[in-house]
Protein backbone atom coordinates (compact mmCIF):
# COMPACT_ATOMS: atom_id res chain seq x y z
CA UNK A 1 0.00 0.00 0.00
CA UNK A 2 1.21 3.49 -0.82
CA UNK A 3 1.94 6.22 1.68
CA UNK A 4 -0.63 8.76 2.82
CA UNK A 5 -0.83 11.59 5.34
CA UNK A 6 -4.45 11.31 6.44
CA UNK A 7 -7.13 8.62 6.30
CA UNK A 8 -10.93 8.52 6.15
CA UNK A 9 -13.24 5.53 5.93
CA UNK A 10 -16.63 6.47 4.47
CA UNK A 11 -17.88 2.92 3.86
CA UNK A 12 -20.47 3.28 6.65
CA UNK A 13 -21.90 6.56 5.28
CA UNK A 14 -24.50 7.12 2.58
CA UNK A 15 -24.67 9.85 -0.05
CA UNK A 16 -24.33 12.81 0.44
CA UNK A 17 -22.80 12.38 3.92
CA UNK A 18 -20.01 10.43 2.19
CA UNK A 19 -18.66 13.57 0.52
CA UNK A 20 -19.41 15.72 3.57
CA UNK A 21 -17.09 13.42 5.59
CA UNK A 22 -14.46 13.64 2.85
CA UNK A 23 -14.65 17.44 3.02
CA UNK A 24 -14.15 17.37 6.79
CA UNK A 25 -11.11 15.09 6.35
CA UNK A 26 -9.70 17.38 3.64
CA UNK A 27 -10.14 20.33 6.02
CA UNK A 28 -7.74 18.49 8.35
CA UNK A 29 -5.25 17.77 5.56
CA UNK A 30 -2.65 20.30 4.42
CA UNK A 31 -2.41 21.43 0.80
CA UNK A 32 -0.30 19.03 -1.26
CA UNK A 33 -0.65 16.21 1.30
CA UNK A 34 -2.31 12.90 0.51
CA UNK A 35 -5.67 11.83 1.90
CA UNK A 36 -6.55 8.15 1.65
CA UNK A 37 -10.28 7.53 1.28
CA UNK A 38 -11.79 4.07 1.78
CA UNK A 39 -15.15 3.93 0.02
CA UNK A 40 -17.70 1.49 -1.33
CA UNK A 41 -18.27 0.30 -4.87
CA UNK A 42 -21.29 1.75 -6.68
CA UNK A 43 -22.45 5.32 -6.08
CA UNK A 44 -19.45 6.41 -3.94
CA UNK A 45 -16.78 5.29 -6.40
CA UNK A 46 -18.80 6.80 -9.26
CA UNK A 47 -19.35 10.19 -7.64
CA UNK A 48 -16.62 10.94 -5.12
CA UNK A 49 -13.71 11.18 -7.61
CA UNK A 50 -15.72 13.61 -9.77
CA UNK A 51 -16.69 15.74 -6.76
CA UNK A 52 -13.04 15.84 -5.65
CA UNK A 53 -11.96 17.01 -9.10
CA UNK A 54 -14.68 19.71 -9.11
CA UNK A 55 -13.20 21.14 -5.93
CA UNK A 56 -9.62 21.12 -7.21
CA UNK A 57 -8.26 17.95 -5.61
CA UNK A 58 -6.22 15.44 -7.59
CA UNK A 59 -6.98 11.72 -7.44
CA UNK A 60 -3.56 10.15 -7.98
CA UNK A 61 -4.39 6.49 -7.50
CA UNK A 62 -7.42 4.20 -7.20
CA UNK A 63 -7.01 0.74 -5.64
CA UNK A 64 -9.64 -1.98 -5.90
CA UNK A 65 -9.50 -3.76 -2.58
CA UNK A 66 -11.41 -6.74 -4.03
CA UNK A 67 -13.94 -6.76 -1.16
CA UNK A 68 -16.43 -4.27 -2.59
CA UNK A 69 -14.37 -1.31 -1.39
CA UNK A 70 -11.87 0.99 -3.05
CA UNK A 71 -9.01 3.13 -1.88
CA UNK A 72 -8.50 6.61 -3.29
CA UNK A 73 -5.29 8.58 -2.91
CA UNK A 74 -6.07 12.28 -3.20
CA UNK A 75 -3.69 15.23 -3.21
CA UNK A 76 -5.41 18.15 -1.50
CA UNK A 77 -5.73 21.10 -3.90
CA UNK A 78 -3.49 19.16 -6.28
CA UNK A 79 -5.17 20.38 -9.49
Amino acid sequence: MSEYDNYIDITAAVCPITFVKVKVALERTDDGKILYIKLNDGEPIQNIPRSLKDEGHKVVKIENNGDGTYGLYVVKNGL
Partner: protein
Amino acid sequence: MIDFSDEMLERYSRHILLKEVGVSGQEKILSARVLIIGAGGLGAPAAMYLAAAGVGTIGIADADVVDLSNLQRQIIHSTADVGKAKVLSAQETVNAMNPDVKVVAHRLFVDSSNIAEIISGYDFIVDGTDNFPVKYLINDACVLHKKPFSHAGIIQFKGQTLTYVPGAPCFRCVFPNMPPEGAVPTCRQAGVLGVMGGIIGTIQAAEALKYILGVGELLAGKLLVFDALTMNFRKINVNKAKTCPTCSEGAGIKLIDYAAPVCDLKKH
Protein backbone atom coordinates in the same frame (compact mmCIF):
# COMPACT_ATOMS: atom_id res chain seq x y z
CA MET B 1 -11.97 24.04 14.15
CA ILE B 2 -15.42 23.18 15.48
CA ASP B 3 -15.73 19.47 16.18
CA PHE B 4 -18.77 18.67 14.04
CA SER B 5 -20.86 15.84 15.45
CA ASP B 6 -22.39 13.41 12.95
CA GLU B 7 -25.71 15.09 13.67
CA MET B 8 -24.29 18.51 12.77
CA LEU B 9 -22.65 17.16 9.62
CA GLU B 10 -26.01 15.80 8.58
CA ARG B 11 -27.96 18.95 9.53
CA TYR B 12 -25.60 21.21 7.58
CA SER B 13 -24.66 18.70 4.84
CA ARG B 14 -26.32 20.70 2.05
CA HIS B 15 -24.26 23.71 3.06
CA ILE B 16 -21.00 21.80 3.52
CA LEU B 17 -21.40 20.26 0.07
CA LEU B 18 -21.35 23.74 -1.48
CA LYS B 19 -17.90 24.73 -2.68
CA GLU B 20 -18.57 28.30 -1.52
CA VAL B 21 -19.48 27.14 2.01
CA GLY B 22 -17.74 23.90 2.91
CA VAL B 23 -16.68 23.03 6.44
CA SER B 24 -14.93 26.34 7.08
CA GLY B 25 -17.91 28.35 5.80
CA GLN B 26 -20.32 26.47 8.05
CA GLU B 27 -17.95 27.22 10.94
CA LYS B 28 -18.16 30.91 10.05
CA ILE B 29 -21.97 30.70 10.06
CA LEU B 30 -21.99 28.91 13.42
CA SER B 31 -19.83 31.58 14.98
CA ALA B 32 -21.65 34.53 13.38
CA ARG B 33 -23.84 37.02 15.25
CA VAL B 34 -26.76 38.60 13.37
CA LEU B 35 -29.24 41.13 14.80
CA ILE B 36 -32.74 41.30 13.39
CA ILE B 37 -34.59 44.49 14.22
CA GLY B 38 -38.33 43.83 14.01
CA ALA B 39 -39.80 40.33 14.30
CA GLY B 40 -42.47 41.03 11.70
CA GLY B 41 -43.10 40.40 8.01
CA LEU B 42 -39.43 40.72 7.01
CA GLY B 43 -37.79 39.68 10.28
CA ALA B 44 -39.78 36.46 10.67
CA PRO B 45 -38.55 34.68 7.53
CA ALA B 46 -35.08 36.20 7.88
CA ALA B 47 -34.79 34.88 11.44
CA MET B 48 -36.10 31.44 10.44
CA TYR B 49 -33.71 30.95 7.52
CA LEU B 50 -30.76 32.25 9.52
CA ALA B 51 -31.73 29.89 12.33
CA ALA B 52 -32.00 26.95 9.97
CA ALA B 53 -28.62 27.91 8.50
CA GLY B 54 -27.09 27.68 11.97
CA VAL B 55 -26.18 31.32 12.62
CA GLY B 56 -24.71 30.91 16.09
CA THR B 57 -26.25 33.97 17.72
CA ILE B 58 -29.41 35.66 16.49
CA GLY B 59 -30.49 38.81 18.28
CA ILE B 60 -34.12 39.79 17.84
CA ALA B 61 -35.26 43.28 18.82
CA ASP B 62 -38.97 44.09 19.07
CA ALA B 63 -41.14 45.53 21.83
CA ASP B 64 -44.47 44.44 20.35
CA VAL B 65 -46.77 41.57 21.16
CA VAL B 66 -48.17 39.21 18.55
CA ASP B 67 -51.45 40.44 17.10
CA LEU B 68 -53.94 38.30 15.18
CA SER B 69 -53.47 40.61 12.16
CA ASN B 70 -49.74 39.76 12.10
CA LEU B 71 -50.26 36.08 11.33
CA GLN B 72 -51.10 36.59 7.64
CA ARG B 73 -47.37 37.17 7.01
CA GLN B 74 -45.29 36.88 10.18
CA ILE B 75 -44.72 33.16 9.93
CA ILE B 76 -42.47 32.83 12.97
CA HIS B 77 -45.57 33.35 15.16
CA SER B 78 -48.56 31.02 15.54
CA THR B 79 -52.18 31.45 16.52
CA ALA B 80 -51.40 30.34 20.07
CA ASP B 81 -48.82 33.15 20.34
CA VAL B 82 -51.34 35.99 20.02
CA GLY B 83 -50.76 38.33 22.97
CA LYS B 84 -47.26 36.98 23.61
CA ALA B 85 -44.14 39.16 23.26
CA LYS B 86 -42.90 38.81 19.68
CA VAL B 87 -39.32 38.27 20.82
CA LEU B 88 -40.40 35.34 23.01
CA SER B 89 -42.61 33.81 20.34
CA ALA B 90 -39.75 34.15 17.82
CA GLN B 91 -37.27 32.69 20.30
CA GLU B 92 -39.46 29.63 20.88
CA THR B 93 -39.79 29.00 17.15
CA VAL B 94 -36.03 29.33 16.58
CA ASN B 95 -35.20 27.10 19.56
CA ALA B 96 -37.54 24.43 18.22
CA MET B 97 -35.97 24.71 14.76
CA ASN B 98 -32.30 24.50 15.69
CA PRO B 99 -30.71 23.89 19.10
CA ASP B 100 -27.33 25.13 17.76
CA VAL B 101 -28.66 28.70 17.67
CA LYS B 102 -28.62 31.02 20.67
CA VAL B 103 -31.33 33.68 20.58
CA VAL B 104 -30.81 36.97 22.36
CA ALA B 105 -34.19 38.63 22.92
CA HIS B 106 -34.13 42.43 23.06
CA ARG B 107 -37.66 43.31 24.13
CA LEU B 108 -37.56 46.99 23.24
CA PHE B 109 -38.00 49.43 20.40
CA VAL B 110 -34.60 50.61 19.21
CA ASP B 111 -34.11 54.36 19.56
CA SER B 112 -31.24 56.82 19.48
CA SER B 113 -30.37 56.08 23.12
CA ASN B 114 -30.02 52.29 22.85
CA ILE B 115 -29.19 51.45 19.23
CA ALA B 116 -25.40 51.90 19.42
CA GLU B 117 -25.07 49.49 22.32
CA ILE B 118 -27.39 46.90 20.79
CA ILE B 119 -25.75 46.78 17.36
CA SER B 120 -22.23 46.74 18.82
CA GLY B 121 -22.50 43.04 19.68
CA TYR B 122 -23.35 41.89 16.15
CA ASP B 123 -21.56 41.29 12.83
CA PHE B 124 -24.51 42.09 10.58
CA ILE B 125 -27.88 43.79 11.09
CA VAL B 126 -31.14 43.02 9.29
CA ASP B 127 -33.59 45.93 9.17
CA GLY B 128 -36.97 44.26 9.37
CA THR B 129 -38.82 47.32 10.63
CA ASP B 130 -42.02 48.77 9.25
CA ASN B 131 -41.53 52.52 9.61
CA PHE B 132 -39.27 55.26 8.29
CA PRO B 133 -38.11 56.83 11.57
CA VAL B 134 -36.44 53.58 12.65
CA LYS B 135 -35.16 52.79 9.15
CA TYR B 136 -33.31 56.12 9.05
CA LEU B 137 -32.06 55.59 12.60
CA ILE B 138 -30.73 52.10 11.73
CA ASN B 139 -28.97 53.48 8.65
CA ASP B 140 -27.37 56.35 10.53
CA ALA B 141 -26.29 54.20 13.48
CA CYS B 142 -24.84 51.48 11.23
CA VAL B 143 -22.90 54.02 9.15
CA LEU B 144 -21.65 55.74 12.32
CA HIS B 145 -20.54 52.46 13.89
CA LYS B 146 -19.34 50.87 10.62
CA LYS B 147 -21.80 47.96 10.79
CA PRO B 148 -22.98 46.25 7.62
CA PHE B 149 -26.74 45.96 7.38
CA SER B 150 -29.55 45.01 5.05
CA HIS B 151 -32.25 47.59 4.43
CA ALA B 152 -35.64 46.46 3.17
CA GLY B 153 -39.19 47.67 2.89
CA ILE B 154 -42.40 46.08 1.64
CA ILE B 155 -45.81 47.46 0.85
CA GLN B 156 -48.74 46.10 -1.13
CA PHE B 157 -47.14 44.05 -3.94
CA LYS B 158 -43.81 45.89 -3.90
CA GLY B 159 -40.57 45.47 -2.06
CA GLN B 160 -37.06 46.83 -2.10
CA THR B 161 -33.76 45.97 -0.48
CA LEU B 162 -30.22 47.30 -0.39
CA THR B 163 -27.16 46.13 1.51
CA TYR B 164 -24.82 48.55 3.22
CA VAL B 165 -21.21 47.74 3.97
CA PRO B 166 -18.78 50.40 5.22
CA GLY B 167 -17.62 52.47 2.26
CA ALA B 168 -20.60 51.61 0.04
CA PRO B 169 -23.52 53.96 -0.60
CA CYS B 170 -25.88 54.10 2.37
CA PHE B 171 -29.68 54.22 2.41
CA ARG B 172 -29.58 58.03 2.72
CA CYS B 173 -27.41 58.33 -0.41
CA VAL B 174 -30.50 57.11 -2.25
CA PHE B 175 -33.22 58.52 -0.02
CA PRO B 176 -31.61 61.49 1.79
CA ASN B 177 -34.59 62.56 3.83
CA MET B 178 -37.59 61.01 5.50
CA PRO B 179 -40.65 61.27 3.32
CA PRO B 180 -43.07 63.82 4.76
CA GLU B 181 -45.76 62.45 7.00
CA GLY B 182 -48.61 60.98 4.99
CA ALA B 183 -46.67 60.89 1.71
CA VAL B 184 -46.11 57.15 1.96
CA PRO B 185 -48.81 54.89 3.33
CA THR B 186 -47.73 52.38 5.94
CA CYS B 187 -48.63 48.73 5.49
CA ARG B 188 -51.20 49.25 8.21
CA GLN B 189 -53.05 51.64 5.93
CA ALA B 190 -52.18 50.19 2.56
CA GLY B 191 -51.98 46.46 3.10
CA VAL B 192 -49.30 44.07 1.99
CA LEU B 193 -49.36 40.70 0.29
CA GLY B 194 -48.21 38.25 2.95
CA VAL B 195 -45.52 36.64 0.83
CA MET B 196 -43.70 39.96 0.27
CA GLY B 197 -41.99 39.58 3.64
CA GLY B 198 -40.99 36.05 2.71
CA ILE B 199 -39.47 37.06 -0.62
CA ILE B 200 -37.66 40.18 0.52
CA GLY B 201 -36.85 38.97 4.06
CA THR B 202 -35.33 35.82 2.60
CA ILE B 203 -33.17 37.94 0.28
CA GLN B 204 -32.00 39.80 3.40
CA ALA B 205 -31.09 36.47 5.02
CA ALA B 206 -29.18 35.48 1.86
CA GLU B 207 -27.25 38.76 1.99
CA ALA B 208 -26.40 38.18 5.67
CA LEU B 209 -25.11 34.67 4.87
CA LYS B 210 -23.09 35.88 1.86
CA TYR B 211 -21.56 38.60 4.03
CA ILE B 212 -20.65 36.06 6.73
CA LEU B 213 -19.15 33.70 4.14
CA GLY B 214 -17.48 36.44 2.11
CA VAL B 215 -18.82 35.02 -1.15
CA GLY B 216 -20.55 36.46 -4.19
CA GLU B 217 -21.68 40.02 -4.75
CA LEU B 218 -23.78 41.81 -2.18
CA LEU B 219 -26.50 44.32 -3.01
CA ALA B 220 -24.00 47.03 -2.06
CA GLY B 221 -24.45 50.01 -4.35
CA LYS B 222 -27.50 48.24 -5.78
CA LEU B 223 -31.11 48.81 -4.92
CA LEU B 224 -33.15 45.72 -5.73
CA VAL B 225 -36.77 46.59 -6.48
CA PHE B 226 -39.37 43.84 -6.81
CA ASP B 227 -42.95 43.96 -8.09
CA ALA B 228 -44.90 40.79 -7.39
CA LEU B 229 -47.75 41.75 -9.75
CA THR B 230 -45.48 41.79 -12.79
CA MET B 231 -42.81 39.51 -11.22
CA ASN B 232 -40.17 42.01 -12.22
CA PHE B 233 -36.92 42.24 -10.29
CA ARG B 234 -34.94 45.39 -11.09
CA LYS B 235 -31.44 46.05 -9.83
CA ILE B 236 -30.67 49.76 -9.86
CA ASN B 237 -27.08 50.96 -9.51
CA VAL B 238 -26.80 53.62 -6.84
CA ASN B 239 -23.83 55.84 -6.06
CA LYS B 240 -22.47 57.44 -2.96
CA ALA B 241 -23.98 60.93 -2.72
CA LYS B 242 -21.45 63.70 -2.19
CA THR B 243 -24.11 65.54 -0.22
CA CYS B 244 -25.36 62.51 1.74
CA PRO B 245 -26.52 63.75 5.15
CA THR B 246 -25.11 60.58 6.74
CA CYS B 247 -22.05 59.18 4.99
CA SER B 248 -20.56 62.11 3.06
CA GLU B 249 -17.30 63.57 4.34
CA GLY B 250 -17.83 65.76 7.39
CA ALA B 251 -21.55 64.95 7.58
CA GLY B 252 -21.36 64.69 11.37
CA ILE B 253 -24.01 62.08 12.10
CA LYS B 254 -26.38 62.71 14.97
CA LEU B 255 -28.80 59.95 15.82
CA ILE B 256 -32.31 61.34 15.75
CA ASP B 257 -35.60 59.83 16.89
CA TYR B 258 -37.92 61.14 14.22
CA ALA B 259 -41.55 61.28 15.21
CA ALA B 260 -43.64 58.45 13.87
CA PRO B 261 -46.83 59.48 12.10
CA VAL B 262 -49.68 59.51 14.59
CA CYS B 263 -51.59 56.72 12.86
CA ASP B 264 -48.56 54.49 13.38
CA LEU B 265 -48.20 54.91 17.10
CA LYS B 266 -48.67 51.61 18.80
CA LYS B 267 -51.24 51.34 21.51
CA HIS B 268 -50.34 49.18 24.48
